């Protein structure tokens, strides 16, 4: 039983890592522009298919590493296009943005279906990712077997989180992002090109999701609707984590991943999903000052 819980926790961690990769981009974009990009899951899907293409062309060993680059750049470019064509025109209308990006998500899913077929594709794992670590622990027959692919996912997510944290703290773009997130008007008055920062963040968020897509391809098949499966929990992560804090997003991803994994020890996946949702709604009840803290002088900040 302990081993079961341990394995569940470990699985929860790797799913949380992918949710985090999806949620980081969502949270950055939401913090900056107050819009939710419903096509964000499709950037994950895109990353997954790019990983599939890379490993098919280059073989599993080199393919996985190359795909990390290809998928993040590819998704970032796609993100930039989406921003320029759709999101940019709808900035003051968050609910309309939500609908338009949803329409885009439907189109991208159908495109994937037409290109790769409705059934998922599998990414071939290189040898160094298909083993398990920790066999020595399993000597008594009751220990933990940690699949290497899941360890890799954890490490990758941690590395991305670290790099992103440093980038936001110490680069000019990071400074601009923090400035625009806090006060658009003021940032614009200081000469920051707000539109370019928004474009950069949208592309960055999409790129992170593309990277997440490679990671999820290591866990299972890539299907046209794989993004949907991951993006709904990612939305919940964003709500739970609050606005404007990487740490909050990371903690929320971890918390939800663990809640869901532990719930699955007792109940099935379907109930676990409901438990996760109720957990978020309950959390909102306990947060004393509502979600958005309004500013003082104007009615609507």
């Amino acid at each position, binding site marked *: 039983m302990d081993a079961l819980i341990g394995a569940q926790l470990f699985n929860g961690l790797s799913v949380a890592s992918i949710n985090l990769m999806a949620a980081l981009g969502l949270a950055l974009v939401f913090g900056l522009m107050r819009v939710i990009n419903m096509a964000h899951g499709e950037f994950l899907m895109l990353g997954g298919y790019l990983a599939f293409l890379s490993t098919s062309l280059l073989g599993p060993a080199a393919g996985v590493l190359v795909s990390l680059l290809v998928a993040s750049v590819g998704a970032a470019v796609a993100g930039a296009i989406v921003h320029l064509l759709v999101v940019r025109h709808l900035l003051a209308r968050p*609910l*309309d943005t939500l609908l*338009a990006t949803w329409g885009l998500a439907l189109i991208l899913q159908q495109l994937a279906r037409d290109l790769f077929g409705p059934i998922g594709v599998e990414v071939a794992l290189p040898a160094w990712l298909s083993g398990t670590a920790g066999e020595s622990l399993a000597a008594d027959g009751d220990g933990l077997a940690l699949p290497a692919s899941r360890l890799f996912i954890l490490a990758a997510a941690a590395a991305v989180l670290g790099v992103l944290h440093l980038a936001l703290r110490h680069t000019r773009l990071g400074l601009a992002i923090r400035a625009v997130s806090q006060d658009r008007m003021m940032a614009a008055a200081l000469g920051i090109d707000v539109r370019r920062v928004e474009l950069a963040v949208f592309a960055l968020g999409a790129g992170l999701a593309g990277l997440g897509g490679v990671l999820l391809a290591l866990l299972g098949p890539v299907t046209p609707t794989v993004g949907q499966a991951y993006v709904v929990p990612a939305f919940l992560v964003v709500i739970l984590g609050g606005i404007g804090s990487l740490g909050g997003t990371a903690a929320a991803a971890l918390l939800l991943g663990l809640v869901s994994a532990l719930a699955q020890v007792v109940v099935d996946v379907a109930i676990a999903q409901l438990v996760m949702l109720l957990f978020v709604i309950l959390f909102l009840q306990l947060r004393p000052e509502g979600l958005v803290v309004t500013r003082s002088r104007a009615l609507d900040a």
Partner: protein
Amino acid sequence: MREPARLFVPEHGGMPRAAILVGAGALALMPAVLGPYDLALLGRFLSLAIAALGLVLLWGHGGLLSLGQGLFFGLGGYALAMHLKLAGTDGAALPDFMVWSGLERLPWWWRPFESPVFALAAVVVLPALVALLLGWSLLRRRVTGPYFAILTQALALAFVTLIIGRQAVTGGFNGLTDFRTFLGVDLPTREARTALHFVTVLLLLAAWLAVRHALQSRYGLALRALRDGENRMRFLGYDPLPWRLAAFVAAAVLAGVGGALHTLHAGVISPAQAGIIFSIELVVLVAVGGRLSPTGAIAGALLVNFARDRISSAFPDLWLYVLGGLFILSVLVLPEGLAGLGQRLRRRP
């Protein structure tokens, strides 16, 4: 966090009485004109229009976008379908799919649905209760805008996952189907179909009148005021919670009634009529027809669905592209839908 203020003049007698009579008259003639297949198709679309009317109130005028209306549609549909399933067992103790799953006894929560009165009441009460609970817990904490949309969507997803995961007691992915009789009437007969059509048209008319009345009343005015200036209203002493909760519950009930009617017309209810995609399709009906206009929502429901029927039978792969394109276009080019277009054309000298 607010949508741009729109200058909206509710349809104060703007809809000529003649047009309403023509519309209602045309719908009344349909059973004589259409074959059984097309009549059932029309019935399904009219049921969707009832659910769409709720979104005009909630989203168009209330500013609350629910991406989980499928949940309420599904609750209404399943509540009635459970009764239909039990009524059609022909003396067998269990519905067919339960027998196939090896169940020996009816689950306790199925029992009350043996009564048609209970099932009909549940069509209204179940969605209302769920909306009341969910709406109260979210709106009380001032959860609106994208957060509200995301959380309602997550609940619809959880509902569907639950139904699919509990195949033995819910019918799972395939849903509940093969209904034979309701209130002692054989469902497949022509007379039953015609009666069902008239019931649907009457309920749609009642829903249309009720939503229009609400929008033209002071309630509608305050709802729009809360949409455009929530905080100003709060500091004028209006507590937004009951006003918005009322709209959410009303929209849920309309979705539930639509779901029950849809189940009768389609002869099936399945997770496909409760999930995320279905919920968002309801939104697109309203977006295309005009989110502010009850009449527009009905027109949108009919137009989009007939288009879908034609396109997806001729080019099955094309429909999702069209649907996605409709979203983007309606939002970017026609934010007030066909009704807004009509109004703009009429105003031009």
